[in-house]
């Protein structure tokens, strides 16, 4: 924790230190910003993080590989499936498992729904912070539908743990196609609704246009990723740059803007939602058949029916549940594009059933680092709009 220091008095002006947040552990954004003010101008800003630190990286080391999937959900609670995916891809790379096409496409479809879910929460809360209450209610109405789809697949609304090493946790449920189709049929018109409320809204434009500028060079240097950097004109997106999980088979665009302000980031995310809808549609219509988990009996749990009738399947089941599976020695770093930016998992295996070391490169941590650069020299009234446009999740930052 950073102590409040007496501001230095320079010249005739009087400076004061303002402490922003956190109010309560359950409020959104458990972040503390210490701001030194000269009148309305921010002279210096010091972010203070760590309020949600839970030692997840340490906990990985005492869980076996399959158990650890449940930890990844809890890192970024708005994008649990993106975290599941990054972790599973890393372990699968170490194991050199081949994932059947249906599982890969399901993963793409569900992570894109996660992106919609996350962007909806972002849009709702960001607008709420700036003072537009209605948008929040509209966004959460659609988010509820997405959470119901997740519940249909995994039995859980938020902490889904639906992707497992080797494929999916459960067979895709009967009727998923119709359910998602019903949602997608109305969703694009709902995006139009949000745009009607905000895009040409004079108050919204007044609060966001020209606010929160930070140069592209600064962002690259300060490890900022995701929609922030795309709103500055650089089409950096792991889905295109290093496609994973069959993303190369999908037709979509990476939206960019060049204005590099809060309004541009809003437009980029709105367009990303439309692109995600496109990807989900393609995934639904082209969904390959076949298996939904890899053919690797020493890693993937056997079917319930086989376990009850075949001795070998029962042995594998017993071994996976009691001692896990061994992962060869080595190290991998896999990157996926989470709704917030570059999400990387660095996993070191030592040949046992537990990871030796897991490091999560989370997008919120890198993005938050740029807050001082972005807000110093601007007005205090713009801070909420500026940091809101970063779309960070503090669980993702503190891990």
């Amino acid at each position, binding site marked *: 924790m950073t102590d409040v220091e007496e501001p230095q008095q320079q010249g005739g002006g009087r400076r004061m230190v303002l402490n922003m947040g956190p109010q309560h552990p359950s409020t959104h954004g458990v972040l503390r910003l210490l701001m030194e003010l000269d009148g309305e101008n921010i002279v210096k800003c010091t972010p203070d993080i*760590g309020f949600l630190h839970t*030692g997840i990286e340490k906990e990985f080391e005492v869980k076996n590989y399959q158990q650890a999937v449940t930890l990844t959900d809890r890192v970024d609670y708005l994008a649990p499936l993106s975290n599941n995916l990054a972790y599973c891809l890393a372990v699968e790379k170490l194991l050199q498992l081949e994932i059947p096409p249906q599982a890969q496409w399901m993963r793409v479809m569900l992570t894109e729904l996660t992106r919609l879910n996350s962007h909806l929460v972002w849009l709702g809360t960001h607008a709420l912070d700036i003072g537009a209450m209605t948008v929040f209610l509209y966004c959460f109405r659609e988010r509820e539908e997405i959470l119901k789809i997740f519940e249909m697949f995994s039995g859980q609304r938020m902490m889904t743990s639906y992707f497992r090493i080797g494929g999916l946790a459960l067979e895709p449920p009967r009727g998923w196609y119709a359910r998602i189709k019903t949602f997608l049929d109305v969703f694009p018109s709902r995006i139009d609704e949000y745009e009607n409320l905000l895009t040409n809204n004079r108050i919204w434009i007044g609060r966001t246009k020209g606010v929160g500028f930070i140069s592209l060079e600064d962002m690259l240097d300060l490890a900022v990723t995701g929609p922030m950097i795309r709103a500055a004109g*650089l089409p950096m997106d792991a889905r295109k740059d290093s496609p994973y999980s069959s993303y190369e088979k999908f037709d979509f665009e990476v939206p960019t803007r060049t204005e590099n302000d809060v309004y541009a980031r809003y437009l980029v995310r709105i367009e990303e939602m439309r692109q995600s809808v496109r990807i989900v549609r393609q995934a639904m219509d082209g969904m390959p058949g076949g298996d939904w988990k890899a053919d690797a009996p020493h890693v993937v749990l056997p079917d319930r029916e086989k376990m009850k009738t075949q001795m070998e399947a029962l042995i594998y089941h017993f071994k996976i549940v009691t001692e896990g599976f061994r992962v060869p020695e*080595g190290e991998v*770093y896999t990157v996926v594009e989470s709704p917030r930016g570059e999400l990387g998992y*660095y996993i070191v295996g030592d040949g046992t059933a537990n990871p030796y*070391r897991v490091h999560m*490169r989370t997008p919120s941590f*890198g993005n938050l*680092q740029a807050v001082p650069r972005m807000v110093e020299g601007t007005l205090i009234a713009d801070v909420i709009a500026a940091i809101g446009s970063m779309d960070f999740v503090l669980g993702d930052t503190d891990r």
Partner: protein
Amino acid sequence: MLPENLKEHSAALAVDAFDADAIKGGKFEYDELTLEIAPAKIASVCGFLKYDQKFIRLSTVSAVDRYPAEPRFEVVYHLHSVERRERLRLKCRIAGTEPAIDSVTGVWRGANWYEREVFDLFGIQFRGHPDLRRILMPDDWDGYPLRKDYPITGPRV
């Protein structure tokens, strides 16, 4: 010395040409290139990679504790070149007693928080870091939680 099997990788060759003493080893596994760098040379190699080889992004810095082996710690840097669409891992092995290494904050300002995190959780000092304080744990915390001799539960040993 650059291992023979890495001679086909342009980034590895470039670092070798820049400073042959800097490379202590390396490997290419799982389609990922790892170079082991002498700890004293890390800042200059990073500067070269950023300005000459277009690795303009430092994706993350992290560490691995090999306790009880010596040298105990590995500091791991993940670099990313947007233009070349390439990733590169640098690794420095440092001793377990009073572990310290040069900071790369002079190359990428973004290394600031990542190095603070490694300092906070592993107790590795970064020489020349502008603001080396704990970042995730409380300031008055005793010990470094991600070290292997730090227990996950129960009293300290």
